[in-house]
């Protein structure tokens, strides 16, 4: 699949050109990018997702750290340009190891190189894929009455039925899920349930929830990868399926929901590609802890701090979230999805999910 990368190269060169121009003008070289913090995300009425606001951060060579950052940026864009020219690609981890030979520009951790790749996206408006950089693996899984058509590495199209053609582990979502790679062919389901933990995913599969309730089950595997979010968004928009997010009941799980429905703070520059504004939170809610009398653990200090931070988070300002977060702070408890097993292995599929789906208006009484 030949693709035109000239636009990407122009944008990459413009970074080098900015630095070069600064040096020529005897100015301290610097790059500007949107500040990637909670305080700088604003709701975009047109796109219906959360995007970066007007605040800018400067990466300037006036400090030692800033200078190192600029040097690494120079090396990284040069490396990306080479990859484009040579039609190669690399994983983020490989990029980190490649930097071993960059002397002073060497990254001290993979986190640093990952963040810089994101910075480059924010500066250029390109996506990681344009830079020929990809994540390690994904591993998120899907089971449901859905046929996808995937372009394989042999450049042939292959149709896969996500119930009949897969084992219990389900269909693995590839790291790239754009239309040239993946198409949704046939769907016969009423809604999507995105599940945080593997244990709960397997429970719903074992109980036949996908078949009995005409659901497409997606395993998020913790904080969902970009491709998982993109997969859910496309399925939601192209096949008009409601999305329900089913997680543990703690502040970290609420953030998983936020990254699916609102857009994540770290990737707000591409929220319109990744976020599914129509996604709904199914549970487990702090109210559920009380209503279902679920087994709990006490909130840790980190949990409490995270909940308080969510109270200031512009994305969590609606009635529902304010109420639930305050309630959780009040009861001081958290719970896991699998705590529902207190009432037996079938309780989640026979009682909890049907009740919640009725509550959300997905199922009728």
């Amino acid at each position, binding site marked *: 699949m030949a693709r035109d990368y000239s636009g990407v190269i122009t944008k990459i060169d413009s970074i080098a*050109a900015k630095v*070069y121009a600064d*040096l020529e003008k*005897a100015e301290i070289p610097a790059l500007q990018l949107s500040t990637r913090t909670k305080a700088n995300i604003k709701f975009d009425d047109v796109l219906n997702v959360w995007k970066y606001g007007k605040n800018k951060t400067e990466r300037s*060579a006036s400090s*030692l750290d800033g200078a190192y950052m600029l040097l690494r940026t120079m090396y990284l864009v040069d490396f990306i340009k080479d990859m484009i020219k040579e039609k190669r690609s690399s994983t983020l981890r490989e990029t980190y190891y490649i930097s071993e030979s960059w002397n*002073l520009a060497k990254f001290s951790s993979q986190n640093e190189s990952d963040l810089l790749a994101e910075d480059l996206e924010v500066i250029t408006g390109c996506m990681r894929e344009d830079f020929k950089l990809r994540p390690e693996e994904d591993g998120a899984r899907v089971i449901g009455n859905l046929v996808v058509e995937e372009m394989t590495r042999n450049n042939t199209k292959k149709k896969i039925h996500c119930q009949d053609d897969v084992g219990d582990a389900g269909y693995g979502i590839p790291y790239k899920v754009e239309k040239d790679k993946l198409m949704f062919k046939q769907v016969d389901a009423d809604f999507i349930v995105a599940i945080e933990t593997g244990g709960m995913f397997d429970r719903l599969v074992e109980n036949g929830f996908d078949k009995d309730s005409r659901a497409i089950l997606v395993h998020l595997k913790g904080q969902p990868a970009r491709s998982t979010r993109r997969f859910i968004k496309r399925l939601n928009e192209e096949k008009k399926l409601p999305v329900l997010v089913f997680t543990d009941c703690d502040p970290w799980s609420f953030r998983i929901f936020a990254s699916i429905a609102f857009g994540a703070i770290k990737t707000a520059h591409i929220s319109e590609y990744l976020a599914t504004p129509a996604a709904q939170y199914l549970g487990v809610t702090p109210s559920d802890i009380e209503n279902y009398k679920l087994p709990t653990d006490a909130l840790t200090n980190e949990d409490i701090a995270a909940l308080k931070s969510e109270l200031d988070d512009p994305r969590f300002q609606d009635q529902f979230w304010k109420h639930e977060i305050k309630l959780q702070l009040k009861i001081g408890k958290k719970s896991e999805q699998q705590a529902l097993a207190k009432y037996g292995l079938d309780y989640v599929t026979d009682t909890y999910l049907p009740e919640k789906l009725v509550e959300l208006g997905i199922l009728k009484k």
Partner: protein
Amino acid sequence: MPEAIAYELAKKQKEISVAEFFERNKHILGFGNPTRALITSIKEAVDNALDACEESGILPDIHIEVKNPSEEECIVLVEDNGPGIIKKQIPHIFARLLYGSRFHAIRQSRGQQGIGISAVVLYGQLTTGKHAKITSKIQENQPAVLVELAIDTNKNRGEIQHQEIMHWEKHSGTRIEVCLKADYKRGKRFVYEYLQSTSIVNPHARLTFKEADGTEHVFERTADILPKKSKEIKPHPYGVELGTLIKMSKETNARKLASFLKNEFSSMGDRTANAVCDEAKLDRNLNPADMSREQFLSLHQAFKRVRIMTPPTVCLSPIGETLIRRSLKSETQEISPEFIFTATRPASVYSGNPFQVEVGIVYGGNLPKDKPIKILRFANRIPLLYQQGDCAVTTAIASIDWRRYGLDQPSGTGIPIGPAIFLTHIASTQIPYTSESKEAVADIEEIENEIKLAFREVARKVQMHINKKVRRVKTREKFDLITKILPEIAKKSAHMLNKSVPSLEKVITRIMDVIWIEDIVEYEKVRDKPVQMKLDVTNLSRQSDTKGWIAKSTIMVVNYKSKPQKFNLYALFPKNAVVGEVRPKPSKVTDSYIKWNLESIDPTNKIDIFFELAGLNKGDFDENDLYVQNINPSYVIGADKWEGE
């Protein structure tokens, strides 16, 4: 009729013997327990030895030895190279309490109460029944004399029990050997500490300590000059008691009140003497011999109401910043401290008694970081080993907030915690001890204030050192930035765009945006006498020892600002140093600093400055103290704002 009770009582009243006096007061005299007794004995003998040597202009070489220790007792031996004592005087000096030549003199001296060495002899006799042995030699070609002394405790007189003439290798000297009840096992450590401390404040003395097991410690001298001799002064009116005043009037030759005041007191000129007489409503021509007690009382009260100049300070002999620093450096070698700073305050006065405070701070190295700082207290060159908590020195240190000087101090008062040693030396004609045991200085406001001021002064030096270090580290990072990273950024961006690498000079000045001053001090053994340079030297007759080492200081000034810079630079040096070669030509040289009016330096250009100092020991001066003038001091790394002299 029964006899009056007073007669009954009179039968029991008698003069108490010195032995009884000693027995009753031995705790306040420093002989309260066998450990204290050991240290006090050595201390008294060493004090005597140091005094004797200094009086006769001999650099002290003192040997201290402990022999034959048992559970109960041991022999203490102290030997000096002083002038010796003539045989006739030996019983008076070693076997008579409250006898001494220094008792009435107003000047800084070690002993003050005269209880001294005879108390040691008495203690030895009372606790072991054995007699002290004194050996003395007064001249090269004469034999030494050895005397065994006993004290007649009823008469307070020494009795010679045995004497002999003997041969002694020494040129001259005195040696005392006393057997006494002492706890050598527990006291050993304190003896060592006492001698080490003594060596710090007596840099001109060499001390050797031979332990009972034969181990020998040497505390080497670090200065070859004897301390300045303190001169005796007359009493100051502020410090004189009424009784003393009346006694003085009886002994004076003056026939008139005004001349009595002028002749017998210090700081009394015509005008002050007249002012005192007027204030007291007394005729200046009154004969002091005819004055009544009431007249003396109003004279005494008038003293306090008239402004009288402070007494002269020739009676004091401070150690000096450089010598304290040298001693501390030599004694803390194993600790390898990060820095040592010292300060000597100008002399001051409390109740008519001149005094002077000197302090030093040793910081870092192997000193424990989580323990309270170690406090070393000295009064008139004597270490104070006990009662630290009751001492004005401790109170003064505890009242300063040390947290901003990088030491821990919960709640901002109390003894700070951190890797430091604090030294305080108080020199005075009259150290106000809290008690006769002379271990703690009383909380006299003037003294406490001076201690605080002295510590604030060194603390400021510490702060400056720390600030300088922090700013240097930050600026060094920038050096990395401009010398390594920036050229790489330029290279890479040029490479990507297929352009030539741009020039970086201007960007470098914008990033650095400072004037960088860096200096090193090196020492070189003297070959020739340095040429002395004097442009504006007030004190031309300054004597200095030019033997030994020359300190060579090189200062590099680089302008990393975007505009040319022109300013004045000052380099401070210790007062006892002599300036040798200076480059470029300075605009002024005084006895404590060199000043340059630097030519305008263009961006990224540098100037090298060089000067030599003689008369210092290696290490006396290892960091330049630099100041700038006529420039915003925040532009400058490596020098502070010149605040004037």
